């Protein structure tokens, strides 16, 4: 591999590493399941790499990646989403558009999660993490927690609400301080 090729790869890796979580979250907001987001994300990373030579050095990598990701999400929906309940295209385009504007805030929200999770009692935190580790195992996790599956989902909704409230509060305080 030549020097310039190595430099090219470094440049890509640096940018991709820095923005991966933002791109992943962007995709996640547009598809119904986390596994769908994983699938789309793989396509997105391949396309980003393939097209990286058309990306201008010094340009806005995240904006460029969001553009690629939006396209890949729509392609995924036309392909896999036909027999699934998915957002309609207009909604996807609207959310994608708004995502770019508020991404700095979304990023702070994702980061605030850590602080908020630490306020959740350890045993409940463990349950949330288990539920999120594998979507397919969620019924098992529910059983182990001693709840009914429906009850577990209800509980999970409440926890999500609490966490989201906490995250919003954290960001409000951030603005004040």
């Amino acid at each position, binding site marked *: *591999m030549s020097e310039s090729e*190595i430099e090219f*790869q*470094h440049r890509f*890796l*640096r940018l991709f*590493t*820095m923005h991966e*979580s933002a791109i*992943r*979250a962007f995709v*996640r*907001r547009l598809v*119904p*399941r*986390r596994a769908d*987001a*994983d*699938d789309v994300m*793989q*396509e997105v*990373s*391949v396309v980003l*790499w*393939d097209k990286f030579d058309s990306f201008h050095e010094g340009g806005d990598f995240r904006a460029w990646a969001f553009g690629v990701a939006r396209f890949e999400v729509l392609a995924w929906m036309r392909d896999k989403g036909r027999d699934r*309940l*998915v*957002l*309609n295209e*207009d*909604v996807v385009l*609207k*959310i994608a558009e*708004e995502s770019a504007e*508020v991404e700095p805030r*979304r*990023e*702070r*929200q*994702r*980061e605030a*999660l*850590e602080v908020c*999770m630490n306020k959740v009692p350890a045993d409940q935190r*463990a349950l*949330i*993490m*288990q*539920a*999120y*580790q*594998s979507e397919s195992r969620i019924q098992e996790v529910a059983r182990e927690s001693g709840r009914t599956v429906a009850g577990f*989902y209800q509980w999970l*909704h409440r926890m*999500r*609400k609490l*966490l*989201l409230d906490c*995250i*919003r509060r954290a960001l409000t305080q951030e603005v004040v301080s």
Partner: protein
Amino acid sequence: MSTKLIDAYLDGSLTAPEMQQLNALLLSDAEVRREFAEILNMDSALAAMAAGWTKDGAPAARQTHWRARSPRWIAAAASGALLLSGWWWQNSQHAFATVEKAAGVVEMADGSALRDESHEIKAGSVALVTARGARIVIEAPAEFRFESAQRLHMKRGRLAADVPPAAKGFTVITPTGDAIDLGTRFGVDVPSSGSAEVHVFQGEVIAKASGAKAKQSLRTGDAITFDQGASTSRELRSSAFIQADEMSELTAGLAAGRRAQSDAALEKWKSDSALIALLDFETDDALTGIFRRVQGRWPGSHAPEFVNVGDHLKLDVGGDRDWPQLSLAAWVRLDRLGAPYQSLFHTDGWDSSNPGQVHWMINRDTTMRLALIGNTLSRDANERDGHPDSRTSVLPEQGRWVHLATVYDSRAKTVRFYLNGQFDKQTLLHVAHPARLGPSQIGNWNQQDRKLSGRVDELLLLGRAMTDDEIYALHAAGNPYR
């Protein structure tokens, strides 16, 4: 209403009419869109957090199911984006890393396979190769655990990594921050107490302090300390880390029984009638100062390490008389710094009213200097700075233990320098006072420009002139390499 729909959407329990309803709400109501985006955004963050979570509080190994589901990905990776294939996920069926060489490490044997379990090494150094081909040397005392071939948790200890393209993205996670490699050579030091440091010897690393918002790109020669959620720049400690190429020589030295030789030789010097001091740093007694106690030349042995401005070691020996002859010797492992001088041994009483006070140091150009106040050079002496300086650079480019010695003789009016047992240079003096010692410092001299950066081991002060043969033998007996 909208919250219920969004929850059902996330659970996958939404009916088709409900989906229509949700789509309509999202399209018409910006507030619903915002709530939706925030919940999904948190969902992504929760998933990321869960991926690194295990019951006992330690992060989990990465899921490997992606690979099986992604033929297109594999094809693309094979066709040129090779760097990416090795990057996020790997086959957890195989060992994450293999022990290539264990030097003085009793807890691990050569060839051991490391998976997702914690390891502690109390002494020595271990060279590992990850499944992706990254070469890693970890120096004791250390506690670490591979989460995957690409993610290494360092609770404490010191690590040097040499990461080939196939292992780009290799990440070291410390209690105070993470270092993500982009195909480089770098070092991470996690001291038993205090903040971790990242040093980039070559290439590029992305550093992120725990809890920090910003990531930082570090390039060749950069170094940072993770400090309470932020990264602070610091000087590169070029020699603080044992690297892969040094390991084979260290293991060979151990195998050849070098340590026993060294210990035996030390006993001989301890009984020398002219002995002023011999510090091997193995006992804690009465060493005052600010320094870290780290591993010395041998597995489990100790040496003081000077890291920050103001670090020093105090000594008060030989102040009861004059010393017409004086020999100074030490094993050192020092960084190449921009600082003008690094203090090896500085008497506190250096003052024109007190001739013969001794300053032994390393100059900016990495030669060695022995200055006694009040002394003047012979007319025949060829010195640039007006002090006796050695000829050859005494600091290697990379971290290495080197042996430095100087012999002063006020009667013969000579200063002689030695590097690794070999005579380097002699300087003739015109005025030569007997040496005077007393309260002194190693690693500093109450002035920032005398800061020494690195480790000192086996410091010998002898009140007579050692011969060339003796210096040669001193180096040979204490040499940790083969």
